[in-house]
């Protein structure tokens, strides 16, 4: 499939955002689990129409932050607005604007791929024809057409990520929040997904991805935020944040914890 053919079938978000309203605005966000503080007074602003990367070491609070931003986890304090709508006041409206791919939650995997995407469409209150049309488009777009009748539980890890992405896209959200969308996805599928996401951003949508792959984020995202220990360490356009160096070096510099040794002597065989 060529990219030209791919772009138009992405459910395009309506481009009617009031000028200057950020796609996501987080103010003073806090969350702790028992003694452990997961997110500590975090502020973050994601401009509308940006392709935003969220990076941080394991346990930095990325998944917790994104869960709270999508209405899956109640924050202890702070406000979150999606395109000017408060997520925890006007929950239903906010959720209709957002498409979510969560990391570490199960899917209803006894459904076939086609049924699962249809399910998500219908849950969003769409009518049958639109759902059928978009399900068909998305399965084709993500190269899952032939697996549409297979139970999701029998999918490979990469196919599962792709079907979850289709579920997140089916209601044409204005903001797409993807937690680790490229984990265990093969390079070809990952490239296809990147094209789809780029097309979606060109069509006026906003994408937030969290990832461990610095290379990927540097190439793909126009904005990036670095999170460590529940705090924002740096944010801005990708070029601003990496400040002439590579994103990976800058990340290590910001986060710290790099160890400069070659491991114990017995591990060196020659």
């Amino acid at each position, binding site marked *: 499939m060529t990219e030209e053919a791919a772009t138009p079938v992405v459910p395009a978000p309506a481009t009617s955002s009031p000028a200057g309203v950020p796609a996501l605005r987080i103010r003073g966000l806090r969350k702790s689990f028992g003694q452990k503080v997961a997110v500590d007074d975090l502020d973050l602003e994601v401009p509308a129409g940006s392709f935003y990367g969220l990076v941080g070491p394991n346990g930095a609070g990325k998944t917790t932050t994104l869960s709270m931003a999508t209405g899956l*986890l*109640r924050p202890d304090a702070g406000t979150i607005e999606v395109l000017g709508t408060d997520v925890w006041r006007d929950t239903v409206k906010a959720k209709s604007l957002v498409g979510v791919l969560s990391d570490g*939650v199960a899917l*209803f995997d006894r459904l076939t791929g086609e049924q699962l995407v249809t399910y998500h469409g219908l849950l969003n209150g769409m009518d049958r024809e639109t759902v059928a049309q978009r399900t068909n488009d998305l399965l084709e777009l993500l190269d899952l057409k032939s697996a549409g009748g297979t139970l999701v539980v*029998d999918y490979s890890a990469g196919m599962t990520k792709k079907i979850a992405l289709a579920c997140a896209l089916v209601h044409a959200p204005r903001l797409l929040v993807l937690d680790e969308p490229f984990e265990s996805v093969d390079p070809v599928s990952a490239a296809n997904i990147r094209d789809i996401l780029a097309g979606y951003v060109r069509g006026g949508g906003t994408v937030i991805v969290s990832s461990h792959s610095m290379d990927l984020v540097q190439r793909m995202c126009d904005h990036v935020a670095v999170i460590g220990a529940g705090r924002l360490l740096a944010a801005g356009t990708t070029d601003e944040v990496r400040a002439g160096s590579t994103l990976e070096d800058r990340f290590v510099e910001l986060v710290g914890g790099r160890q400069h040794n070659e491991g114990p002597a017995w591990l060196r065989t020659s």
Partner: protein
Amino acid sequence: MVAHLLSLRFRLMLNGIRRSPMVLVSTILGALWGLFILVGLIIGMVALAFAEPQWAWITAVLGGALAVLGWVIVPVLFRGMDQSLSVEKLRTFPIPPQRLLVALLVVGLLGVPGIVTAIVGLATTLSWLREPVALIAAPFAAALGVLICIAASRAFESIGAALAAGRRYREVMGVIVFIPLILLGPIIALAGSSLSSISGDLPRIAAIVSWTPLGAAWSIPGDLALGRPLEALAKAGIALATLALLILLWRRSLATLLVSPPTAGSGAKRSKGLGPFNWYPATPTGAVAARTTVYWLRDPRYGGSLVVLPALAILAVFVAVTGSEWFLLLLGPIFAATLAITLCAEVSYDGTAFASHLSTGVSGVADRAGRVITLGIISVPLVTIATVVPQIVLGRSADIPALLGIGYGLLLTGFGVSSVASARFLLPVPAAGESPFKTPPGSSFTSQISMLATWAVVFALSIPELVLGAISLIGGQMIFGVAALVVGVVLGSVLMVVGIRAGGALLDRRGPELLTSLRRARGA
């Protein structure tokens, strides 16, 4: 190496227990209960020493054979019950199969079931206190018997592991093998009533079993005591050959398992079209109903909860045949009471997939209503049949309205109450893909209390139709029965709608907290 694996095993067990105080308490209670039974068994063994040696022999042979059978069957049934030291996890370590075999044998012996089997097995020695020859042979025979138990269990488990790689096979087997187990109650009842006639045959049954690999080892001391030394020798031969064969089989399958992991996911099921999604209206409620319909058809955990119904029906027929008709008479209301609260487990069955309901912002009412619709389509016909058919067969058609009133009342009220309850608390259930009958960790006292409380509320709210129905059944006036039917359906429907509304509102409010506890339940 053996000691290493053993300490790993105990470390895993201890850490599992220490996860929460509730688990610790229930483990201690379970251990005390087990100890109680153990002491009872040992006293029984000593008592047998003062009975005729014939009976000690029969007990040892039949009990031992059952133990071997249990060791083979239980792990196959509860696949994944104790996978803490499964071959799959040990595959990456460079352990020669020979030593792994010895290690797994010892680990099996020193687990809780192994220790219990070993103690009971060795306790059979006590029943030969008055037979010196048998007393000397008994510990060796018991050791042989216990080793056969563990080797048989391990051998069949690792042979089964290769077979059970296919998901569909596993799921279907998981439900099928449980049907006889649930029917065990009626079977035992049946056997109990005619035990007097069987007891005459017990010596013959024991004689046959003692020549099979199941009972041979356990028969040795008895044969010696009863003056059959040649038979004892032959049975020792059978037992040793059994053990050798089992170890050989196990060793071979272990060697294959170590190098070639069973591949999962072959023969994936394909289905065309949207299925149930075309049957229901294209609304969020319809979508939830369609999804739960698919799950009732495909997820063994849902269907598994219905297995108890045919068992109840068979038991009712059995009780009716042996004299008392009350069970069969009340079958419909009993079905209703059972089905009414199956809804309580639904959100727990969803697991973290419930996140998709949360992230799409589907209203709690639609979520509740969709689940109730599917369960209603399944359970209303079931309750109707279970009420009407027995009354016609028993020639008591006049009682149909009263019993239908009670049944529908309980069912509809139950839908309402469990719609609220399942938004309030989660039940520990097996995760998707696990055996539907696996007892999940942390199935604690509190969840059983909350189930009982739900039931109590259902019955309390159904008091009007229960009273009217009871008056009709006892007094024989059909007019009260009709009143019960009307009240049951109307009041039940009102309570159902109220329950769906309240449960939906609760779900809207508590959704994120519910997801957090679902994540925690899955250890994520």
